[in-house]
């Protein structure tokens, strides 16, 4: 018995909770097509008025960085402290900058 023969593809769901905010990943679901995925996302993830907009993306279409790359991708940013405003000491007379 092949379990996945007819399994609908997996979709990742992103919901904008209100205008002015970005879409945020909320979970996933299965659907046969994109329209069904949006409809299902509406019923599954916004039953309590959690959303004003929905994105669905087929999980297999997402390219992700791998955890093994974490060091090379993200550690080099560690010593770039000059990118952060707190790196710069200003005289107290400058109140807001």
């Amino acid at each position, binding site marked *: 018995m092949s*379990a*996945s023969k*007819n399994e609908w593809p997996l979709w990742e769901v992103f919901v904008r909770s209100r205008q002015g905010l970005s879409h945020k990943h909320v979970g*996933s679901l299965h659907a*046969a*097509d994109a329209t069904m995925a949006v409809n299902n996302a509406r019923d599954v993830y916004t039953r309590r008025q959690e959303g004003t907009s929905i994105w669905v993306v087929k999980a297999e279409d997402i390219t*992700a960085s791998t*955890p093994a790359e974490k060091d090379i991708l993200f550690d080099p940013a560690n010593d770039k402290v000059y990118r952060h405003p707190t790196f710069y000491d200003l005289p107290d007379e400058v109140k807001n900058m």
Partner: protein
Amino acid sequence: MTQEMDLNQRFEDYIAADQKIEAKDWMPDAYRKTLIRQISQHAHSEIIGMQPEGNWITRAPSLKRKSILLAKVQDEAGHGLYLYSAAETLGITRDEMLDALHTGKAKYSSIFNYPTLTWADMGAVGWLVDGAAIMNQVPLCKCSYGPYARAMVRVCKEESFHQRQGFQVMLNLSNGTAEQKAMAQDALNRWWWPSLMMFGPNDASSKHSEQSMRWKIKRFSNDELRQRFVDMTVPQAELLGLSVPDPALKWNEETGHYDFGPIDWSEFEQVISGNGPCNRERIAHRVNAHNEGAWVREAAAAHAAKVAARADQQTHAA
């Protein structure tokens, strides 16, 4: 080998530092297996748990109660779905999990193998069973595996109305006619002990507990949570004017907790091994829904393939 040791060290460091483990991070095989087992069991419990309450949707005694109950059972479907999704991040498909459920390889909370005989059971299930479930679930919001923890945050947020509506059903029955009050007492009598069993075996005989605690999948022991549940629920029963069916139950000044009588673990074992009142029906109902839906799932997949092929053709023709 050394690389694996490095990875394992890093994993242990993460756990020790209360950092979350995410889907693609390296994790020990046993951790992955434990999570798959626990999250899928949890999902199955939500899905099977739809049945005992679903049993009363068409007979709910007012349109308001019907709406509430339908919304609640629908939430359970949603919770099952969130949890299947979380488990899928660990490299198992929903179909594989459902297959394990349908063939009896996977377990689910044995409480759902008890029948819901009267409307009062909708009260007792919400009040006691959801109450016990929340007790178990709130700590899971902090569990070490990110996708599970996030799913549980959502579940717990939505569950908060479930227990309240159950208590309200009980309250209305307790304040109602003599027949209604008897109905409520009868439901409490039937659901009390199974609810205590929901926390699992005593700590001394729980085979998965210790490792899960170390991995921060589990945060409190079975007995701790059970005691907390009893302490919270007994005063609520008093408020309802109902009596808890345990002659040994009494407040202990010294410990600051309620003492309660011994749990009949032989009943628990019976139900868990498939001999509860409704085990067969619950699984048969699930299998039936799945099989009856096969042609529908197939058709939708076939239609999607057709539409994609047509779009392809158009692109090539253009």
